Structures are given as structure tokens and as C-alpha cells.
């Protein structure tokens, strides 16, 4: 039997990958109309790779959806279109600008205006419009404290709300994906991955990332101790003078709330070294949207954020 053969070693990346592939296949098998959320960021690029592992040589049994704030890094959009074309899969774009034009949401104003908050409405509208019953996302439990307690299959009610006190117990690799019409689940295949795991996986799988993840010269300004890209989407305040320096971004969100870090890491290996040595979480360092209150993420998640 087994004893004569050399057994494969299963590394932590192998095990995390296997878990994620299993989750992808469960979502596809147990739900009628799933959708894969794609932001152009490294986590969703990893999701695309995992979906290939789960379903090739078949097609993905779901479309890919981008919630487009209209305030994106140009590199991320260019990357999105190219990658989706290479995969030969279907892309759905839900636009925050359209939500504004239709009067579903009201644009914020002033130097701290962001469309980050508005995305939630656009997302929930798109889920309803297309009749999606599962949205697969790249959230990770290491990102933020309330995420650490969220299930891999996270149930949302008719209003798209998350109720942290009424979560379904999740045991072994058995996921309860049952929903009624109008309800949906958010499924997070890389829940148990850390930022470092993601980068190690990017390196192992030799995945291409948008250039903004690597050190590049960019015009930035400093606000609240973070470096923001100077762009037409952000109104600068008194004293926020732009300057050029070498930065890279740890997350790719909306340009209005995503900060960069000073870095000279130009390759995946150099970035992995920097991440392994870093002392600040990626959301704490570079996401303004999580810095407002002790429970910022929990509050946004309750009303239906990613």
C-alpha cells in the first residue's frame, strides 16, 4: 500500500491552497448564481489563480464582478481588463458613478471625500439586479479584528446585513450554504491566509501584479501620517504639498483612501522580505477607511460592505 511510495510533503501554502480550492468548489456546487468579486488587488488576483486550480480545464462557473468606484489606479484597470481577457471569462462591471447618477447614493465632498462608503450600495444593487446568491471575496481574517470572527461562508440577510451574533457554526470543512431567495452568502476562500502567505503564494505561482505593488516614483502628499497618490480625485488641504518619492502600495483600493509606503522593493522577493520585517498591519498603515473608529470595519460590514 502506501508505505513503499514516497509521499508528497504538504507545505502551509499547499494546505491553504487546498482549503481555498475546496471552498471555491463548494460555492459553485451549492449555490445557484455565484459571482467572484475582483478589485485588481493582489488578493483578488490570487483568487483568480485559485479559481483556475478549482475549475480548469473547465470554465469558471461564475462571472467576475468589479465594483468600479471610478477612482481607480489606472494600472489596476488596465490589468483587470487584460487578465480577464487572458482567462477568457466574463466580466461584470458595477459602477459607483452610475449609482450616483441614478440618485442611489450622494457623492461626498471636501478633501476627505471618498467613494469607498458608496461602494456598498452599488454592490448590493448589483447583487440584487443579477440575482447573485453568493459573492466570493478576498477578505482575510488577519486584516482586522472583526474579520477574525467572520465565517468562511458568511450569511447576509435580505438587506445584505451581517449579524455577527447570529453566525452559523462552521465545523470541519462542512459549510452550510443554504439561503432563501433574496438572501446571499459572502464566501471567503482565503480567510485563513495572511498578507505574507499571499505574497509567498504570488511568488510561488509567479503571478503578475499591477505595477503599483512595486516601488515606483510617484507624486504623493502626506496626510495623517500616510502617503497618498496625488490625483484629480483627492482635494488637497492646506500644507499638503505634493512631492515625488519612491513608493509601493500594500493594498489597491480606491485612490481616495489608499495610502502608499516608502519603499525601494522592486521585485516580489524584495517585497516579501519587507513584509516579513514590517511592524504595521496593511490596513493600519495604508487604509484610511479603517482608522476612524474602534469598530470601523465591523460597522461597515454590518450594512453590507465587502
Amino acid at each position: 500500500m502506501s508505505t513503499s511510495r514516497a509521499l508528497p510533503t504538504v507545505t502551509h501554502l499547499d494546505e491553504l491552497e487546498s482549503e481555498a480550492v475546496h471552498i471555491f468548489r463548494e460555492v459553485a456546487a451549492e449555490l445557484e448564481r455565484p459571482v467572484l468579486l475582483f478589485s485588481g488587488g493582489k488578493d483578488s488576483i490570487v483568487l483568480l489563480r485559485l479559481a483556475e486550480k478549482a475549475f480548469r480545464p473547465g470554465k469558471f462557473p461564475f462571472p467576475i464582478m468589479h465594483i468600479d468606484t471610478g477612482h481607480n489606479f489606472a494600472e489596476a484597470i488596465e490589468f483587470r481588463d487584460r487578465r480577464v481577457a487572458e482567462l477568457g471569462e466574463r466580466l461584470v462591471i458595477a459602477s459607483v458613478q452610475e449609482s450616483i447618477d441614478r440618485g442611489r447614493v450622494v457623492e461626498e465632498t471636501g478633501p476627505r471625500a471618498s467613494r469607498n462608503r458608496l461602494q456598498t450600495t452599488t454592490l448590493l444593487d448589483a447583487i440584487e439586479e443579477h440575482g447573485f446568491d453568493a459573492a466570493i471575496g478576498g477578505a482575510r481574517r488577519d486584516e482586522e479584528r472583526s474579520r477574525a470572527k467572520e465565517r468562511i461562508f458568511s450569511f447576509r440577510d435580505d438587506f445584505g446585513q451581517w449579524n455577527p451574533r447570529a453566525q452559523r457554526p462552521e465545523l470541519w470543512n462542512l459549510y452550510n450554504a443554504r439561503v432563501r431567495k433574496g438572501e446571499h452568502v459572502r464566501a471567503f476562500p482565503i480567510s485563513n491566509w495572511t498578507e505574507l502567505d499571499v505574497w509567498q503564494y504570488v511568488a510561488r505561482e509567479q503571478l503578475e501584479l499591477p505595477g503599483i505593488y512595486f516601488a515606483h516614483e510617484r507624486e504623493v502628499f502626506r496626510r495623517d501620517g500616510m502617503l497618498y497618490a496625488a490625483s484629480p480625485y483627492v482635494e488637497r488641504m492646506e500644507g499638503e504639498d505634493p512631492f515625488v518619492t519612491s513608493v509601493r502600495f500594500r493594498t489597491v483600493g480606491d485612490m481616495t483612501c489608499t495610502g502608499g509606503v516608502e519603499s525601494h522593493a522592486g521585485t516580489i522577493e524584495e517585497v516579501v522580505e519587507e513584509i516579513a520585517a514590517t511592524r504595521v498591519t496593511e490596513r493600519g498603515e495604508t487604509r484610511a477607511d479603517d482608522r476612524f473608529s474602534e469598530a470601523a470595519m465591523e460597522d461597515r460590514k454590518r450594512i453590507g460592505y465587502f
Partner: protein
Amino acid sequence: MATSEQALSTDLLRLVTCGSVDDGKSTLIGRLLFDTKQIFVDQLEHIEDVSRRRGNEYVDLALLTDGLRAEREQGITIDVAYRSFVTPRRRFQLADAPGHVQYTRNMVTGASTAELGIVLVDARQGVVEQTRRHAYILSILRVPHAVVAVNKMDLVDWSQQRFDEIAAQLDGLMAGSVGGQAADARPKNLGLPDLCVIPISALQGDNVVDRSGRMPWYDGPALLEHLETVEIASDRDLDSRRFPVQWVIRPISDEHHDYRGYGGQIAGGVWSAGDEVVVLPGGARTQVEAVETIDGPLEAGIPPMSVTIRLADDLDVSRGDMLADPAATPVVARELEARVCWMSDRPLEPRARLAVKQTTRSVRAIADELVSRTDVHTLEDAPAPERLELNDIGVVRLRLAEPLCVDPYGENRTTGAFVLIDEATNETVGAGMVLSAS
């Protein structure tokens, strides 16, 4: 720290911590995260800031683990939290389960995926009812490795005598060894297969990450050292081949016209091309043509790898079927006797109708009989209870509308496990471990 090269060699250990704030569990987790440099500066500044605003005299490490607003406001832990840490030797995934009686369901949840459980004991109190309950849950969930961390040794003057007393209490309670030596002839009341007892002070860091100089009489490993070196590869079930079919890959394209692959996660055994298989519950026989991923064919696949299996013959195989070794098949069962942890506010009563989800298959079932209920305080079984309430553990006999392919949980933690779903509410209301099947 871990770099790209190390990523190719580190493995993953999933562990569960059992205990309450009083045992110093949050302090221990905070210490493990802090000393392995997983707590980032912004997180530390944040909890320092919150502790100060609340007028605490010390930095409350529990704030790191209490993620939800209600938990912070009420100073309680509601739910299982999952966190990660990494050392150069191993990547860890920690399920942090609150320890109160009413949270049995959370501990069962955290233990279901764990390969190692840490039970905290307060050195001043010794083995208490809660210790027994935690050990019991680890044993019924078949967590292969257990550590009892005897905490607050600083408060008993680092006393070897006190530690020996506690170790002796544990010895009577479950299969035990002190300092990592294997136990053999001792009584195995709760059947914990591998137990290591370590004296620590989570508050002062003794024997957590580094060995303490204050307990020279202890010559075993520090906690982290033990976590880094405990052998887990051999825990995998390599004996009987089990493969629940999860997803049929059948591309509708000219290029892959005749391709038919079965995607799934290997639940048991070593799988290679040429192996004989039986497709259950139908019973058709064939051979494995290939075990593969998109990266190419594999020489051998083992648990818990997700792979695609192709078969030599074109059979009617679909999700919910199980591929297995014809020489050692699972039971194709219509009746299960199972240990169940009940997780719903609405009690389980005899004759209840439920859905059972086991591997990739869901069937309807009737709870024909409640055989016994375990008192989680005394760990004694009382026969024929009227109902199982939230957080109760008992033995239930289930009659299935359609067959399931199962093994006793004692033989396979994947094919012997199931959840119970209330089809009226869609809630997950119970977790089950197969004792016997027919």
C-alpha cells in the same frame, strides 16, 4: 522571519486554545503573538490607547482578541476567533474559543479542525471541572495532540511540588505524560493520545517562547518549542482511500471534448494512477486514470490535498458520490449512531426531522432515538434524555432517507463528521461524529 525560500518548507499546524480569561488565556495568546512578533505596532498602540481611555492600569491583551463591539463593551468573548502566527519553523492557525460552559458549541467548533489543543490550568486552582470538560471535548473531537499549560507558576513560587501535584491530577484524568514523554501503561480515561504538560507564566513569559530559568527542575520544552516540533504529518489518515466527489469538471469545448474529471479534497489514503476504485453508493468498479491538478499529474495524492481524479471508465459519477478503496470500503449507511453537540436554542427532541451534511452529500434524516446525554460537569452519561438543549452533548440514533458513505469518526475525522441543518430555518443546529453505522 519567514521568507520565500522558507515558504517552500514550513507546514501548517492548526490549534485550538481552551480556557477563560481567568486562566490567562488571552494573556497567553497575546504573549505568543507578541513574542513571535505578530502583533503590529499599530495594533499595540491601539490597545494601549483603548486601555488608557478605559482607565486600565495595564495593557489589556484581551482587546487584541475580542474583535466585536459587543465583546469589547461587555468584556466577554462571544465567538471563535481565528488568528495566524508564523515562526521560521512552522505556520500556525489558532482557533481561540471562549471557555465558559455555555460556549461548548464554540469549543467544539474550534476543535473540529484542530490538530492540537491547549488547555489552560491555573496553577493555584489545579485541575477543575472546566479542565475536565475541555479535555473531554478535545478527546471526542479526536484532536490528536494536547498540551496542558499550567499557568501562573509565578503565583505559586515556581513550585515543582505544586506542578507535580497537578500533573498527578491530570494523570488520573487522562492519558498523560510530563514534559513530552510518551505515556504507555497509564489509565486512558479520556483517550487523549498525546499529552504534554508544561509549567508556564503567560504574564511573565516563562516557558512560553523561551525556556524559563526560574524552573530549573523542568527539563521539557517551552510551549512554542513544543508547538514547533510536534509531529503532525503522521496524523493524516493514509490507510483507507476516501475521495468525496465535490465537483465534476466537464469542459464543453473542442479542445477538451472527452475530458471528465472529478474535483475534490482527498479525505483518506494515498491516491495514484492505476489504483482500483469503487464508486459509492452505487458500487461500480474501475481504476484511477490520473490524479492531477492544473500543474500536471501527481505521483501520489494524500489528505488534505485538493485534486482532480480521472477514471479509466466513463461512469455516471456525480457530486455526493464517494470514490474508495474496494478492499476497505466505508459503510454505506442508512442508520447512524453518532455523538452530537447541539448548537441551537431550540432543543433537539426525538422524531425531529433534520438535514445531514456529510462530506459533499446532504440527506434528510429523522432522529429516531436520543440514546444518552453527557453531563458536561460530571462527564457521566444519562440514558434516554427527553431532549438535547443548546450546548448539550449526547448520543443520537439517526435514520437516513438516503444512504451516506461513512466511517466511524474514530477512524476518519472527515468521513465520520457531519453537521445537522434545520431545513425550516436553514440554521446549522448540530455537529455530529459517527460512532457506528449500518
